């Protein structure tokens, strides 16, 4: 099992290095290499999913001595939530490699950076201690920096710097939190042990717990992002190249929520109880604000970006309600949003490659020329809105049900987000696809070809599968959600 976990790091890293070492004269094989290696990782993730560790709470499987005199160890481990997110990452890397146009697929740097990004994200989800979590959390910025900065849109310079600065600003707090936790742990154990097992056994005073919660959560919330720290997101999503947007929306936003579930809540529960109402209010503002702003957008990518702010608001609402059902819903919503937002960004990418514009007003009636594309887009929009029977419904419904007991008023407001989502998605669909063809450039648009169809179909199938059989995906997170909510409940009792 340890071997599988380590190979989750080694395989992507090796493939990235391999791509960098192949001479540019063989540029046609960059994409196949990337796909083959991400399929290997995908298979490993499936193996993990059906192993003993696919359904548990976080278990540390291997420790490596790192800095002996400090007693600092690198710990790697796995849990149900991690496995699902790893699976999502590999899937999205694989399909985004398949979906991108030749201009990017034949660039060594692009494919290499994408695979390096895969490596760093995998690292985040299997980290079993704060130090390696921090290192991977930061390391994923470097490939993202190149992906956005070199292959991004017109305004990429501004967007990249903004993205990096926001994230690193948050990371500094995580860094200080890590050091602080290490120092506290040193006082208790005589070693700078910050692996998750030692943290769980640490007896923190009330003020320590609150300080640490604030430090970590602030850093993670920027990444989620929560209102009002979300302003980097629309710029970053719009300017990133398609594959970058898919991974950014699909996985990187989840890293923040993952950190809160993995670190902030279980270890600094007292801090969580003190500040959860504040987080809940911000998430509901985010849900409504993101949705309203999305209605007003004229750029399709920006519309989806703001819808992400709204959807991640649900995740944070579910987390801050802290109940069993709401946390389970939040985890499932993370996966679902990864699938639907990834698919939407991919679809927009297809359109952009054909027309080199994302302006809603330059389309209209393209259902006639691209019927297959239109059908898939409509299906994905329904999934994103949360139509029952598709995946989006499952998570949001569980979150709203689970949160209602703790926050009756806030949850009622949050429910309006679903209505607003229907407005912005369907109105956008209407303007892009229905009616007569208003722009003559759209008359010669080609429908999706086989490669493009193949890359979107796995995501579409997943939306349907999770929508009609949610208890299957639920079975992987039951234990973990139970563990987190019990930690919270236990702490309430002690108080």
């Amino acid at each position: 099992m340890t071997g599988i976990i380590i190979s989750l790091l080694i395989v992507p890293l090796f493939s990235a290095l391999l791509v960098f070492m192949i001479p540019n004269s063989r540029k046609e094989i960059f994409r196949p290499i990337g796909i083959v290696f991400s399929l290997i990782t995908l298979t490993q993730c499936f193996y993990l999913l059906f192993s003993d560790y696919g359904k548990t709470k976080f278990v540390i499987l291997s420790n490596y001595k790192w800095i002996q005199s400090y007693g600092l160890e690198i710990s790697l481990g796995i849990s149900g939530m991690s496995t699902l997110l790893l699976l999502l990452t590999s899937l999205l890397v694989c399909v985004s490699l398949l979906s991108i146009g030749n201009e990017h697929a034949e660039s060594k740097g692009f494919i290499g950076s994408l695979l390096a990004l895969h490596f760093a994200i995998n690292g985040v989800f299997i980290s079993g201690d704060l130090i390696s979590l921090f290192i991977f959390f930061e390391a994923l910025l470097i490939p993202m920096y190149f992906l956005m900065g070199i292959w991004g849109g017109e305004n990429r310079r501004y967007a990249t710097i903004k993205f990096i600065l926001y994230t690193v600003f948050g990371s500094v707090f995580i860094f200080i939190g890590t050091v602080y936790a290490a120092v506290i742990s040193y006082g208790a154990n005589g070693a700078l042990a910050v692996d998750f097992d030692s943290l769980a056994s640490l007896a923190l005073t009330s003020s320590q717990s609150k300080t640490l919660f604030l430090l970590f959560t602030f850093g993670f919330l920027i990444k989620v992002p929560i209102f009002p720290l979300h302003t980097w997101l629309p710029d970053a999503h719009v300017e990133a190249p398609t594959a970058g947007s898919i991974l950014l929306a699909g996985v990187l936003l989840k890293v923040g929520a993952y950190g809160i579930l993995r670190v902030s809540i279980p270890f600094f529960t007292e801090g969580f109880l003190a500040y959860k109402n504040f987080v809940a209010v911000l998430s509901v503002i985010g849900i409504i604000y993101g949705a309203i702003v999305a209605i007003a957008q004229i750029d399709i990518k920006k519309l989806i970006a703001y819808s992400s702010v709204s959807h991640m608001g649900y995740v944070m609402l579910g987390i801050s309600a802290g109940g069993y059902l709401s946390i389970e819903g939040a985890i499932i919503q993370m996966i679902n949003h990864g699938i639907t937002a990834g698919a939407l960004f991919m679809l927009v990418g297809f359109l952009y490659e054909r027309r080199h514009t994302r302006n809603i007003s330059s389309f209209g009636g393209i259902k006639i020329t691209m019927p297959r594309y239109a059908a898939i887009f409509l299906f994905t929009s329904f999934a994103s809105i949360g139509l029952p029977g598709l995946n989006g419904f499952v998570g949001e419904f569980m979150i709203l049900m689970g949160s209602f007991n703790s926050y009756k008023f806030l949850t009622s407001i949050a429910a309006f987000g679903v209505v607003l989502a229907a407005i912005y998605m369907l109105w956008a669909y209407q303007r892009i696809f229905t009616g007569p063809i208003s722009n003559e450039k759209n008359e010669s648009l080609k429908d999706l070809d086989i490669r493009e169809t193949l890359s979107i179909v796995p995501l579409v199938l997943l939306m349907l599968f999770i929508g009609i059989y949610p208890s299957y995906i639920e079975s992987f997170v039951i234990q973990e959600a139970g563990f987190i909510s019990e930690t919270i409940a236990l702490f309430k009792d002690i108080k």
Partner: protein
Amino acid sequence: MILPRKSKYYVAAFALLGTLFSLAPLVIQWANYTSPIYAFENSFVVDKFSIILKGLFILITYLTFLLSINFIESDKYYQGEYYYLLLSSLLGALIVSSSRDLLTIFIGIELASTPMFLLSGWKKGDRKSNEGAIKFFLLGVLSASLILYGFSLLYGLSGKLVFSEISSHLLSASLANSPVVLLSAILVISGIGFKISVVPFHSWAPDTYEGAPLPVTAYLSVSSKATGFVALIILLTKVFAGSGSSWGIILVIISGLTMTLGNLVALQQNNPVRLLAYSSISQAGFILAPIAISGITGDYQDGIFASVTYLIIYAFMNLGAFLSVHLFSNYAGSTNFYEWGGVARKSPLAGVLTTVFFFSLAGIPPLGGWFAKFVVFRSLLGSANSIGIALGVVGAINAVIALVYYARISKVIWMDEPKSINEEKIFQFENPLKVVGVFTVLITFVSGIFPGIFSYLGEVSSIFFGN
């Protein structure tokens, strides 16, 4: 110097080999090491701490020579003298790291810095070079006199020269916190403050850095700074150990000011060398922080470990950063880095190296800089002292500010539209420079990914403090 002009080429090779060979006795000393060896009536010591630092100084000088070869040959510079002066400065640094009495350390400090007065004015035809050299010289002499004045007070009080005797005299006569000793400590800190260019003694640095030949600047910002820090560490912990609570506060203030001012001014720079000058001022604040706090808490061992670790990692990544600036400013022919738009595309290797060094300076893992920051913050927060935590907060804010200007350079070289790129012009990346680049980048990665190698230093700093 005695070689005829035609055969000056051999000078470089000779200097390179000489520095490399001087590593050999160090390795032997290291391998046969049992306990500290004292010589010259306790005024000179060979312990693990000094061996490590000597290794560092020799490596830095070696890399500086590699940086210099092509540069020195590119114009009418005196070659023989150039290498001679750098080697003299290296000798000074080596003396400092082993010195245990007032005279030896003073000779070491001055031997390390005096050649730099000449070298910083090496571009004789350049007004800026002359201006920088004069400023550096005047302030350097002032700093030497401050250090000497401080030493003379110590000698007057105790009548001793050797550190251990002075400090035991101060303790036995309970003079450790007397005003005279404090005055002496302040004088020494101010004097060395010039060498390590901390606020408010930093004003010479940007002008001198800008005027000096680039390899010399790299040497100044790395080796000279390191020499100053080593001298400061030795003096503070060996002589003034008893009055730590007083100089600790002073150093905390200096450290906080240095980080902040250096950073804020660096934000405004468009000249890459001036930017690096201010950034290295700000980095000096970080190096100083753990020593400052260790003065207050009395845990010198931890402070020395954190500072020296930071110093070593900083040395290599900063050398690398100067290498990148050297490459790109040569190519673009401009000293305004905003005009370097897209130059990384001409040489992706140089572009990647640059990004690595600047991100490492900003402290982004898995590059070495993050571990340097980690040990410093650990030492600050671990002090469990409100002053330490306050300094940690200042440091954290500065870490974010610093990212803005570090990221800006790599943004320009990768993402900006090419303005001054001449398609015909060949990007010069000579082999000696490649060696420097690869060597420094390796150290930057290794120290970030396997920081365990520094844990040895923790043990060594305890040896240092034990004798």
